[in-house]
C-alpha cells in the first residue's frame, strides 16, 4: 500500500543518491536522533554528520550523511546533504578513510588559529569521523 510508505530522496551536489519508497527513516538533527514514519507532521530540520537509516520491508539500509537539511511533508522526504555514502562502501575502503583522517588531523594541528583553511579542514575531519562511526556501529 503506497499510502503507508514515504517517498525518500537524498540529493547531493553531484546528483540524487537515494530515490525510493521506504517505511521509516531515522537520522540525527542538531537536537538528537529522530524517526519519521508515514503521516508524520511536516518537519524541517538541520542534520548533523552521522547516520541515516531507512527501512523497507523490514530491511534496514544504513548510510552516512554529511551536514545537510531534512524536509518532510505529505509522505515525501527530501534530504539535502553535501555527501552521502552507504555503509557497505565505507566498509570497503575503511583503511583509506582512516589514513585520510590521520593526515587531515595532522595538517589541522599544524595550522595557525586564524588560517582560512581551518573551517574547510574541520568540516572534512567531521565528515570522515562520521563515516567511520557509521561503519563501526
Amino acid at each position, binding site marked *: 500500500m503506497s499510502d503507508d510508505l514515504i517517498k525518500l530522496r537524498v540529493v547531493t551536489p553531484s546528483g540524487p543518491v537515494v530515490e525510493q519508497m521506504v517505511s521509516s527513516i531515522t537520522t540525527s538533527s542538531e537536537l538528537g536522533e529522530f524517526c519519521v514514519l508515514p503521516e508524520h507532521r511536516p518537519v524541517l*530540520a538541520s542534520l548533523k554528520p552521522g547516520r541515516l537509516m531507512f527501512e523497507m520491508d523490514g530491511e534496514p539500509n544504513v548510510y552516512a550523511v554529511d551536514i545537510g537539511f531534512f524536509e518532510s511533508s505529505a509522505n515525501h522526504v527530501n534530504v539535502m546533504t553535501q555527501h552521502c555514502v552507504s555503509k557497505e562502501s565505507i566498509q570497503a575502503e575503511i583503511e583509506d578513510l582512516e589514513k585520510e583522517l590521520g593526515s587531515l588531523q595532522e595538517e589541522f594541528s599544524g595550522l595557525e588559529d586564524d588560517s*582560512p583553511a581551518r573551517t574547510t579542514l574541520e568540516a572534512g575531519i567531521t565528515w570522515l569521523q562520521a563515516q567511520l562511526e557509521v561503519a563501526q556501529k
Partner: protein
Amino acid sequence: MANLKEIRRRIASVHGTQKITRAMKMVAAAKLRKAQEHAESFRDYSRLMSEVLAEVASDAEEDAHSLLIRREPEKALVLVISSDRGLCGGFNSNLNRLVAAELNSGRVHTDLSVVGRKAKGYFEHRMVKIQTYYDEVFDDLDYDKAASIAAELAKLYENGDYDMIYLAYNEMVSVVSQVPTLVQLLPVALPEKKKVEAGELASPVFIFEPSESELLAALLPRYVEVKVFSALLESAAAEHAARMSAMETATNNAQDMIDSLTLVYNRARQSAITSELMDIVGGAEALND
C-alpha cells in the same frame, strides 16, 4: 600569378589548421555534454535548497542574519568567473568588458577577485588590483572548491570589508548564445516562496528543528555556496559551448579559404598548361616553316 607550388603549400597549411579546429570542436562538444550533465545533476540540490530557504525565511526579518543585512554600499567586490583557456570567441572579452564598464562607472569603490587565467591577464595588464586569484578552479571542478570560495566571500561580507558582493559570469542562454551577466551574491536576496495555486493545498506548517533562526543561520552559508557553484558550473558549460561555436566558424572559414585557393590553383594550372601548349604548337609551326 602566384606559382603552383606556393599555392599548393598554402592549401595544405589551411587543411592542417582545419583539422585542428575540427578536432577542437569535437572535443568542446564532448566536454559541453559532460558539463551540462554536471549542471543537470546539481539542479535538484539547488532547487531544493532554494525551496527550503524560502520556507524558512518566509517571515524572517531583514536583520535576522548577518548575510541578509543591507548596508549603504561604499565598497563592492566582484568575483569575475572567466576561463583558463582561450580560443572561445568573445567569451572572455565580453565578460571583461562588462566588468571594466562596471569598474569605470565609478558609482562605488569596486575591487575584483578572479577565477580563470583570462580575466587575470586582462585586468593585470590594465593595472587593476586583484584581491584574490583562485587558481585551477576549473581543473576538476567540484562542490568543495565552490564552498571554500563562498566561505571566503561570506567572511569578507560579515567582517564589513565589502557592502556588496557580485558574481560576474557568462550565462548560457543556449548552445549558440552566452550572455555575460552581473548578479548580486551578498547580501543574500531571498528566493520567493512558491505561490500556492488554486486547487493546491496550502504549504504545510513545519516543525522547525532547531529553531527557525538557527535553521536560517545554517541555511544561508549553504545557499551562498550553491549560488557560487551554480555560477561556476554555468560558466564552464558556457565556455565549452562558446568554444564549440568558435571552432565551428573557424572550420567553415578554413573550408571557404580552401575552396577559393583551389580555384586559384586550378586557374594557374590551366594557364600553365595553355602556355606550354602554345609553346609546343609555336615550336611545331616554326619547324614546318
